[in-house]
């Protein structure tokens, strides 16, 4: 079981390690810089860190024996001469990486393959550990891609990538806002999935249009790939057919609004969420930070509070800031107010590691 966490924050990347049964901050990298996401590739131990330098753009770094080295950043193709495309605000859409929002390793039979999702909607694949990147042009050039809209940001972005553990060619992505997409040929062709989701922010004509769905996070059970969970902008949805269709889980206390979801690696009916009040009031209900857990596919939820702040807590947990270890026992939660909690019993109890970190964007077991 991994004893290390990587915490991506507004002001650096922090390493948190378990020592003598306690978790503590043991290191910091890129201090002062905006780190949006990390990936630890379990096939070879390499770590990747996505940085956003603001003025100087998005950059990608990879771990070395002695620290970090900058590697290639996914780069959008040159926009054809005379080609015009506007974003949802009517402004020219700049074909340029605005944020790295998803990093996932390829399958066990594809050493060196890394997938990368970005704003404003480009999906990239590297086959050489990030030395170079190829844009999935069939997705970028798909006519429906132009219907993607901003959700988590002004620009649309790919935040979730799921690679089938049994067949590396089968890949799912989720877009905010643009629904769930699937490729069964390693990214050569893409189809829109996600029937059954509901967008209450859309007009009646498009409420159930799969492309209108603001998926906040998509999670797939590795041992049962038919089971996918979605934390959506206005609800929780679950699929039993690999994302083709979803059913809504309603009447969940304290709320069905939130950003992250994780699913147990071997128990497809077990998933965790971090609820906030609702989209126009993004704070925990009654100032109590809770994690909700279902063990029966969404019929019932446990509200987990032990060790989490239950008074005047205004922590928001972003879509990448709830992590589950590969064994499905340990969880970690990081918040926008710099709080970090770890559970070693599937969320029944939590220990606060710190509440003084910079705003946390992503938490991952290394």
């Amino acid at each position, binding site marked *: 079981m991994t004893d290390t966490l990587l915490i991506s924050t507004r002001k650096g990347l922090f390493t948190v390690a378990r020592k003598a049964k306690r978790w503590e901050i043991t290191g910091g990298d890129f201090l002062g810089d905006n780190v949006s996401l990390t990936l630890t590739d379990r096939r070879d131990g390499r770590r990747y860190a996505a940085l956003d*330098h*603001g*003025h*100087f*753009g998005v*950059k990608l770094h990879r771990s070395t024996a002695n620290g970090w080295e*900058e590697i290639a*950043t996914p*780069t*959008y193709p*040159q*926009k054809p001469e005379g080609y015009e495309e506007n974003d949802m605000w009517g402004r020219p859409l*700049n*074909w*340029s*990486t605005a944020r790295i929002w998803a990093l996932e390793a390829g399958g066990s039979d594809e050493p060196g393959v890394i997938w990368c999702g970005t704003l404003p909607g480009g999906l990239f694949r590297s086959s050489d550990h990030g030395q170079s990147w190829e844009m999935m042009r069939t997705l970028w050039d798909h006519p429906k891609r132009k219907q993607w809209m901003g959700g988590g940001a002004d620009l649309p972005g790919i935040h979730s990538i799921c690679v089938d553990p049994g067949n590396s060619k089968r890949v799912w992505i989720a877009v905010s806002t643009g629904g769930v997409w699937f490729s069964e040929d390693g990214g050569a062709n893409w189809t829109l999935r996600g029937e059954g989701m509901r967008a209450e922010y859309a007009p009646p004509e498009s409420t159930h249009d799969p492309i209108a769905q603001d998926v906040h996070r998509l999670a797939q059970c590795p041992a049962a790939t038919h089971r996918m969970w979605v934390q959506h902008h206005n609800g929780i949805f679950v699929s039993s057919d690999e994302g083709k269709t979803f059913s809504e889980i309603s009447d969940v206390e304290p709320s069905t609004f939130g950003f992250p979801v994780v699913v147990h690696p071997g128990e497809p009916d077990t998933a965790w969420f971090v609820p906030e009040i609702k989209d126009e009031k993004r704070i925990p209900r009654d100032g109590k930070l809770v994690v909700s857990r279902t063990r029966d596919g969404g019929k019932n939820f446990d509200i987990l509070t032990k060790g989490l702040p239950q008074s005047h807590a205004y922590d928001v947990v972003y879509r990448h800031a709830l992590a589950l270890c590969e064994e499905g026992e340990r969880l970690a939660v990081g918040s926008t107010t710099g709080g970090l909690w770890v559970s070693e019993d599937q969320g029944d109890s939590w220990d606060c590691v710190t509440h003084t970190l910079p705003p946390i964007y992503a938490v991952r077991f290394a």
Partner: protein
Amino acid sequence: MAKIVFTTNIQRHVVCPDAEASGHSVREVLEKVFADNPQARSYVLDDQSALRKHITIFVDGKMIGDRTRLSDPVNETSRIYVFQALSGG
């Protein structure tokens, strides 16, 4: 040759020493500088080779007007400053 000076703030990410290069436009001069320092290119220009949103360039004390093509004229005695824009926070 024109002289190019980069903001000190970029130096902690990628070393950009003062440079000299010839060219008739900001684009021509910068491309020559980046030919010798390719890592610096993506810190100043975006994926479409336009000036990054929160970078500014001054030529002989005047902010350039063409941020896309970088066509503002440059002469052999020009001084080009590549700065951060305050708009970036």
